[in-house]
């Protein structure tokens, strides 16, 4: 397949990129890793007049920790997240999530910012963005705007970002040392996207109570969302098998679940419940074996 013609721009700084975007308006598309956009160009599903390649903006490609926050630049690739010593030290959970995305070649190019902005309903990162309570930092001519994860995903491939904005970084609050986290994914046999992906994070008290539970769900609906009903049922309860099994039954409540050519809505509801349950059981097993996320302050 062969893209239609467009003009290619490669700004060298974020300011330059923002200016270009403001000037070119909706005739321009931002190009990060390109692993959603370029296939769309090839199929001519997208035919922008201009492409603004962000790979020249070095500021967007860094991983750092400030205080209790892990900051990941928008053009950080999945492989960089997977292999980054910083991420592996402070939030190994996220490295493991990155390692489950697509395949090695795609991970070398695909970016966290691209995934979060594209908001594909079956993408992996969005579930974790929600469960981690991440913040998205958007830059435009008028300055910087920070959007919380809960406000970010608005519908099918729609997010809170404005047309004039560039996502610059994702800020992720680090987990407390009594947190356990897992991402459980059923990859689609053909596309390797998530049929269902459950990002589950729980903070447990010394006596085994659930002080906080955050469950992000991707794959089953038109956009990623939180399994609020499950979370509520876990909160301040003993994190035991019975409670988990009971709470998981509510996994689909409040979610808008559609079927597709491969899985019916009934299938997806069942898979969602099962994967939430299994993810929570994994959390329990992690807690029992002492496999908590690193403590805040253990940062290298």
């Amino acid at each position, binding site marked *: *397949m*062969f*893209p*239609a*013609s467009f003009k290619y721009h490669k700004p060298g700084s974020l300011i330059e990129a923002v200016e270009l975007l403001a000037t070119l308006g909706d005739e321009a598309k931002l190009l990060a890793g390109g692993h959603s956009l370029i296939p769309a160009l090839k*199929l*001519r599903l997208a035919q922008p007049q201009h492409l603004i390649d962000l790979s020249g903006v070095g500021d967007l490609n860094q991983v750092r920790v400030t205080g209790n926050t892990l900051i990941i630049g928008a053009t950080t690739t999945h492989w960089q997240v997977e292999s980054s010593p910083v991420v592996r030290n402070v939030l190994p959970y996220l490295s493991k999530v990155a390692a489950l995305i697509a395949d090695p070649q795609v991970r070398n190019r695909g970016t966290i910012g691209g995934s979060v902005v594209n908001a594909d309903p079956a993408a992996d990162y969005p579930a974790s963005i929600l469960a981690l309570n991440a913040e998205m930092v958007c830059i435009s001519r008028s300055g910087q705007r920070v959007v919380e994860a809960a406000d970010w995903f608005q519908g099918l491939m729609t997010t809170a970002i404005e047309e004039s904005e560039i996502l610059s970084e994702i800020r992720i609050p680090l987990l407390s040392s009594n947190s356990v986290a897992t991402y459980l994914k*059923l990859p689609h*046999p*053909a*596309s390797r*996207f998530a049929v269902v992906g459950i990002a589950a994070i729980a903070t447990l008290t010394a006596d085994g109570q659930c002080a906080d539970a955050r469950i992000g769900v991707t794959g089953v609906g038109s956009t990623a969302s939180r399994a609020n009903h499950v979370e509520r049922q876990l909160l301040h309860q003993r994190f035991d098998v019975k409670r988990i099994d009971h709470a998981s039954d509510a996994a689909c409540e409040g979610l808008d679940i559609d079927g597709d*050519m*491969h*899985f*019916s809505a*009934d*299938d997806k509801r*069942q*898979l969602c419940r*099962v*994967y939430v349950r299994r993810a929570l059981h994994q959390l329990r097993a992690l807690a029992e074996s002492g496999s908590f996320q690193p403590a805040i302050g253990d940062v290298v």
Partner: protein
Amino acid sequence: MLGQAIRRKEDERFITGAGLYVEDVQLPGMLHVAFVRSAHAHAIIRGVATDRARKVPGVVAVITGDEWPELASKLPELNGSVTMTSPYIDSLNVAPHFLFPKKVCYVGEQIAAVVADSAYTAADGVEAIEVEYEPLPVVASWEEAIKPGAPRVHAGFDNAVAHLKHEIGDPLAAFNDAEIVVERTLKTQSLKSMAIECRAVAAQWEQATGTLNVWSTCQFHYMLRNTLAEILNKPAESVRVIARDIGGGFGLKGVLHAEDIIVPLIAHRLKRPLRWAETRMEHMTASNHSGNQTNKVRVAAKRDGTILGMDLVMHKEVGAYDHFDMMLQINTVNHLTTHYKVPNLKIEGWAVSTNTPPGSPYRGAGRVEAVFTMDRMLDAIAREASLDPIEVRLKNIVTPADMPYRNGMVYRDGVPVTYENIDFPLLLETARKRADYDGWRQRQRELREQGRSIGIGVSSYVEGGGLGPCEGASIKVDEIGRVTVKVGVNSQGQSHETTLAQVCAATLGVSIDDVQVLGGDTSLMNVGFGTGASRVAVNSGNAVHKAANEVRRKVVALASKILGSTEDEIEISNGVVSVAGARQNQMTLGELAGRAIRDRRMAELGGPGLVATEFFYPKTVTWASGVNIAIVEVDRDTGKIDILKYVFVHDCGLPLNPLIVDGQISGGFAQGLGIALGERAAYDEEGQVRSGSLMDYYMPRASDIPDLDVGHLQFPTPDNPLGIKSVGESGPNSPPAAIAAAVEDALGGHVQITKLPITMSSVLEAVRSQ
């Protein structure tokens, strides 16, 4: 030499990126072709507005069907190039298939071609063309197509384009005598071959020699040559089709598609070299597919599991144009009873046109449907009679004492199906032991106590392969002792350059390093057919053997005269011709070849040079066979099927090269696994493709493939000098049936698995229905 695991001679160019696939053909001044394709599954073309496209920068020409008279041609009617007879068929009435039809009958059908200076600008041109359609009602499944009053795919033609029937014994009496009758409706899905290389064609009119050179991905290059020559009213030799390096075939490339013909015709007119390379999206939309098939089956049996009779009604979708009459269903019939005796049989089948791309074979070509039917019915009897599935199989199995065994079928070459020198019980017993069948039955019970769902499935296949009519080989020894073998077949990965070189080297007494095999070019041999129907090892292998023997005869005759010995005393080893017991009395084969060009004594030996051309005509097909046993675990919560163990026991006669046989089994198995677990070409009610890319069409990857425990048995055929049988289509036949049986078994026998593919979704649905 023969039977040795020799690494492949063709690999060097492939592992260094030096292979020359059709899309790699680059000629000076080459232009690129792209096709305007139908957005509708059924519509009259009212108009094609091309003006805007002609103005697109880079566009050189826009071609519609009325441009030149030859574009009004039809595709050849019967494309199944090696089909010789059609047993069982009593009615056949197929619509003509034009290169540029005035009425499109499937989504993706070609409407116009754009020629441009790059593939990019050609795509720009296609985008600038507007087609005015008058949409017509669509039938996208056989069920819809045979309803009374259903819209017709082609006016004046019934949607049921062909019908067959066959009867053995007295089926009515069998059902009257039955103690058990089991009935199933079995559905197998439409598939695409999914070679990683899509189709492609490049063409160049060579003014100086008056030759139309065509590079094609077609498996049957002579068919393409002859078709083009006929349309252009030129001698066949003025069209040269080169189909050398092809990136996988598996059946879909074994049929002519319209582009294969249109692109050379345009190159001929424009006198410019052209290339068209199909995109994956075009492939998924417009290339052929194998067609859904539904088999409604009843089996009459005794309570002890003995089969008395079977009644089978088949419906097969053949898409918008049927180029294979009922070849796939005839294959289903002829492979239906596999290793078992079905004394009374009644079969009826319909080929049904739908508004989907034309049907064509996919590796297995009706055999998967046969095996799935036979094994699912044997399992149904086992369940009904509360017998172990292997017990039921042993009750009905054809034994060596029954050989030669005729099951009452007639192959496509008109010869009655006959099994000879095959030990089916040994295949089954070998598989049973390798799989530790009895041990797993025990573990299955234990693990069931722990809530785990383990299942075991058995499947048996036969593979009629090596279909004629014939293939030839032309061998020449040159003056430095190098041996060139020319064959009329081409390769899509089957390793001919190695296996046929092995046959030649072993027969002639030369080093394999001194043998090169050339194929895939119609200028090499006057007559050839091509690669498909698992036919090359048997046909070309034996032709090479025959030709090498003929060269050997000339070597012995001439050398004995030159060296002054009797013919019996001449030995050929490693390219040296010598007299037995007189080592100094020798010459190299190269020297002898040089002498043979001028030596007058060659007049009595067929003319100058150490050359020979021979053809091998197989008596009929050979019968390879095998037994597969799958042990699976089903996750009832997710529908996921894990294969814990997979045993593949097979016989392909004497293997030419065990490494390559292993590769064929492994590759075929993986395709069978895909058929079992998820591959599916799907169309919606409007005929729009639902499996439009590799995002939706599943193909197994490395992480999906279990280890394979392969057991080789050898039952050589008496029907050819090398004792070889086919292997190419052995792999995919049994995995769907074995896995279906294992999944059904894992679910406790409370549900029936009657439909392929067995997706996670279908398992979940089955569990929910319990």
